[in-house]
């Protein structure tokens, strides 16, 4: 038994090391078949093959070299097409000269009159993009603007590769071009990496069952992992890097995605994408660390049930059901994800997909909206926001399991609370404005709303909030700022749930008369950075919008002072009163 823990650690480190090595362990060879398989437009495929000819038939020894060369080839294609189809200054001068007084769209035909493909494109595109100039006094500058827009949107789209295509192709071509031990034996490598990590973790965790049940935070603040020391910083850096790769440079991590291809094929029938890999690892983290959470808090039924709940919702609702939906040719849908956490819920492509899928699609749309306007307020009223944040939510699920070792790192200062309120409510406003813009665009087909472009706005939101804040900061900062950084400072759904919890709910944390000894365990282990002791030592109910109801303050309290309760609303905002002293009226 004594050796299980070190053995587990050794297995985990081995698996983790192989996982990291496998990132680099591949060579890449592009073939015409791969290119043609991934690019259906034959002409585009041919031009790319032309530019990427150095990659064909030769091995690139690393993902960095291969991606760099591929990236250059894609850029070169765009550059060529722009020079072939772009307007020259001379042509634009000519156009300006034709239209000194007022612009006549017919003049386009005169300037680009010879019959060839370029001119045909120029005529058509200028009429499409600049048709509104017709009959108006027009400057050279306006003509230039039209030409620039055509360059930016028209040419690259039609003859080259736009940003999205470049991102997608870099990833899919790299993945398809890989030749590596991982690719020949994905299942074996899945076992040697993630498999060993799971077995190792469990062997490390299970011996805790020998200890008596109860709160065992021994050594937390001496631990290099849990106290922002070298191991914690290293872990945080690794996580941050992982998220940056996942969201912004997925083309480098194709070897990892290849590993989970067999699992994905088994579930949905498709090849794995990067977000399948992410979802797979994410779910396993919640399951394995959920086992740890249950063992650590096995004296508390509340903690056991809550942890089982997040494990279930992640595995079934977030991971399995959406994959099965795809297998059944239905839209991908996470039935427990709620806007505005699910910020793309109202994006036109998603609404269109749902509406195109008949009864089930419509049901999903209605379900999603019902969660927002009915489930959130009603369930928060009866149970507090914990029904979502620490029982159902995926982000919360990860925070409560993988993130549990870091809960003590949240900042409890009053100043942090102030920053928190500004930040989280700003994100909520941002999410609402962005979504309003998106819906406006959906119904009017106009991308301009007042002074902003709704496409640009959703992109900014996706990059900075969706990927940057929720992902990179949200999880990457676990070992640095605690496990609920995103939930506390950024999640717009938490803000929405919190507003209801603060003003209209039966939920509160009650304090037990005069029993508090101000020891500070509750505040220390509050992942949301609530200074619980501040309330407990003055005998005041804790009614805070941010409280996710994890119940750990109650669990760690050595004197039985704190309890999560749902009761009638009266007296919820009770005065601070400490029982046990006659003749004392507390001054405010």
């Amino acid at each position, binding site marked *: 038994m004594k050796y299980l823990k070190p053995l587990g650690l050794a297995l985990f480190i081995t698996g983790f090391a192989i996982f990291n090595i496998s990132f680099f362990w591949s060579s890449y060879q592009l073939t015409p078949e791969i290119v043609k398989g991934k690019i259906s437009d034959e002409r585009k495929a041919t031009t790319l093959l032309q530019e990427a000819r150095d990659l064909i038939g030769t091995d690139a020894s690393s993902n960095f070299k291969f991606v760099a060369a591929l990236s250059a080839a894609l850029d070169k294609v765009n550059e060529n097409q722009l020079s072939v189809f772009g307007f020259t200054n001379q042509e634009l001068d000519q156009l300006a000269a034709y239209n000194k007084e007022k612009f006549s769209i017919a003049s386009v035909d005169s300037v680009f009159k010879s019959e060839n493909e370029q001119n045909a494109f120029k005529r058509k595109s200028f009429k499409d993009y600049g048709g509104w100039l017709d009959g108006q006094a027009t400057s050279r500058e306006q003509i230039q603007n039209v030409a620039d827009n055509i360059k930016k949107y028209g040419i690259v789209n039609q003859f080259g590769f736009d940003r999205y295509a470049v991102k997608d192709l870099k990833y899919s071509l790299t993945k398809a071009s890989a030749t590596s031990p991982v690719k020949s034996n994905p299942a074996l490598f899945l076992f040697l990496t993630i498999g060993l990590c799971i077995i190792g973790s469990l062997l490390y965790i299970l011996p805790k069952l020998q200890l*008596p*049940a*109860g*709160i065992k*935070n*021994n*050594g*937390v*603040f*001496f*631990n290099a992992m849990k106290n922002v020391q070298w191991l914690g910083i290293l872990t945080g850096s690794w996580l941050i890097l992982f998220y940056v790769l996942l969201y912004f440079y997925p083309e480098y991590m194709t070897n990892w995605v290849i590993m989970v291809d067999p699992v994905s094929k088994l579930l949905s029938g498709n090849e794995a994408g990067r977000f399948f890999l992410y979802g797979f690892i994410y779910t396993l983290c919640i399951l394995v660390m959920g086992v740890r959470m249950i063992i650590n808090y096995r*004296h*508390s*039924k*509340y903690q056991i*049930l809550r942890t089982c709940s997040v494990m279930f919702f992640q595995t079934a609702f977030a991971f399995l059901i959406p994959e099965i939906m795809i297998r059944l040719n239905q839209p991908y849908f996470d039935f427990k994800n709620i806007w505005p956490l699910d910020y793309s819920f109202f994006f036109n492509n998603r609404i269109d997909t749902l509406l195109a899928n008949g009864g089930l699609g419509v049901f999903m749309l209605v379900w999603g909206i019902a969660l927002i306007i009915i489930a959130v307020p009603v369930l928060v009223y009866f149970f507090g926001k914990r029904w979502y944040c620490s029982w159902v939510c995926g982000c919360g699920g990860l925070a409560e399991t993988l993130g549990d070792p870091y809960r003590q790192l949240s900042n409890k*200062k*009053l100043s942090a609370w102030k920053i928190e309120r500004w930040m989280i409510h700003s994100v909520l406003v941002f999410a609402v404005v962005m979504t309003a813009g998106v819906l406006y665009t959906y119904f009017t087909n106009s991308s301009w709303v007042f002074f902003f472009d709704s496409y640009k706005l959703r992109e900014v939101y996706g990059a900075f909030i969706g990927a940057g804040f929720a992902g990179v900061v949200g999880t990457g900062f676990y070992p640095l700022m605690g496990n609920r950084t995103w939930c506390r400072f950024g999640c717009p759904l938490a803000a929405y749930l919190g507003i209801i919890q603060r003003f209209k709910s039966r939920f509160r944390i009650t304090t*037990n*008369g*005069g*029993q508090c*000894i*101000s*020891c*500070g*365990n509750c*505040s*220390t282990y509050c992942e949301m950075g609530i200074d619980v*002791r*501040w309330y407990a*030592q003055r005998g005041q109910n804790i009614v805070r919008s941010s409280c996710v109801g994890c*119940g750990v303050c*109650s*669990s760690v309290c*050595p*004197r*039985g002072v704190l*309890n*999560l309760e749902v009761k009638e609303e009266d007296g919820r905002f009770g005065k601070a009163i*400490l*029982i*046990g*002293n*006659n*003749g*004392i009226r*507390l*001054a*405010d």
Partner: protein
Amino acid sequence: MKHIVIIGNGISGITAARNIRKRSNDNITVISGETEHFFSRTALMYIYMGHMKYENTKPYEDWFWKKNKIELVKDVVEKVNTESKQLVLRDKGNLHYDVLVIASGSKSNKFGWPGQDLKGVQGLYSFQDLQLMEENSKNIKQAVIVGGGLIGIEMAEMLLTRKIQVTFLVRENEFWSNVLPLQEANLITRHVRSHHVDLKLNTELKEIQGDANGKVKSIVTNKGEVIDCQFVGLTVGVSPNIEFLKNSGIETKRGVLVNKFLETNVKDVYALGDCVERKYELPGRRTVEQVWYTGRMMGEVVAQTICGQKTKYEPGPWFNSAKFFDIEYQTYGNVWSELKPNETEFYWEHESGTKCVHVIWDKITNQFLGLNTFGIRMRHECFDKWLREKKSIDFVMEHLAEANFDPEFFETHEGEIIRKFKKATSIISQ
């Protein structure tokens, strides 16, 4: 404006300071030689065990004191001159006061054992004791703790987290049986042993032996047993820390003597908390009470008095709590280690042997007198009310479920407790 000086920044002194500030604009100075800021003494063990850092044990952020115009002075009071209303500080010289509040707390008892001043022998009360314990317990294998009270059991728990083998000498037949009834004392004794503490009951310390460097190397018990150890924890109670009041004219016995208004014999000098000895009796309470809650309540009272609203110290029904390793303990009302002649009892223990409820009531009047609960949390508010209203035992048992304060989904035992209670009492009444 008066200058109110408070000696001691523990829970008593700080509660007084905060409550005075709420009611007046007088100058307030708090002096402590222990730490610059108020911290929770009860949390010392958690710092040692790595549950918290010292920073986490401070109930108020450091800016709080300045914002509330409470001046903090880190120094030791060496003398009090009540005639000139001056304090003599060790480093910072003299300090004038208009009103003096003494909240100087306790110090650990030492009963004159041979070797009690060897290196590696210590009590645990102050922040400095904690630092000393950190140093004394570095790289050692065995420790002996003397005295079966709350600090002793904390020390045992602390040392075990550093993988130090603990031998615990307890004078009584069961752990803490001078306070707990035998049933509970027995339950805790078993629990302590389940944590691999070598608990030696009916055993007292005779001598502490040192090595050539003046460091403890073993102890000898009253039974002649020699136990090797590199650390000895003396946790045989605490006494008021009042030496600096000698010749001040302030009347002391075991502690600073105070009347119902926490006034000492000298005008404008008050005392509260651990260092106090009441001149008058309160039913069911000792005259020196070294308890967190007592200190806090006295702080609330003295603040009102100093601010012109003269208030008697009248604590409500007794309550207390503690945690013994993994078992939480709460008590409401009075449950003595032995029944008084007018009392009768009902004791329920869960089959796991880690939870129990013990109720005491008056044989004749049936009035509910007190309850001990282990492993089940109960509401202070309910018992406070029932005790004040002198409810009958039957009423209390009938409403026991209302008093449950365990988290949601926890197994409840009230049904079983009440059933067994009814069975037990019906036998008695037959």
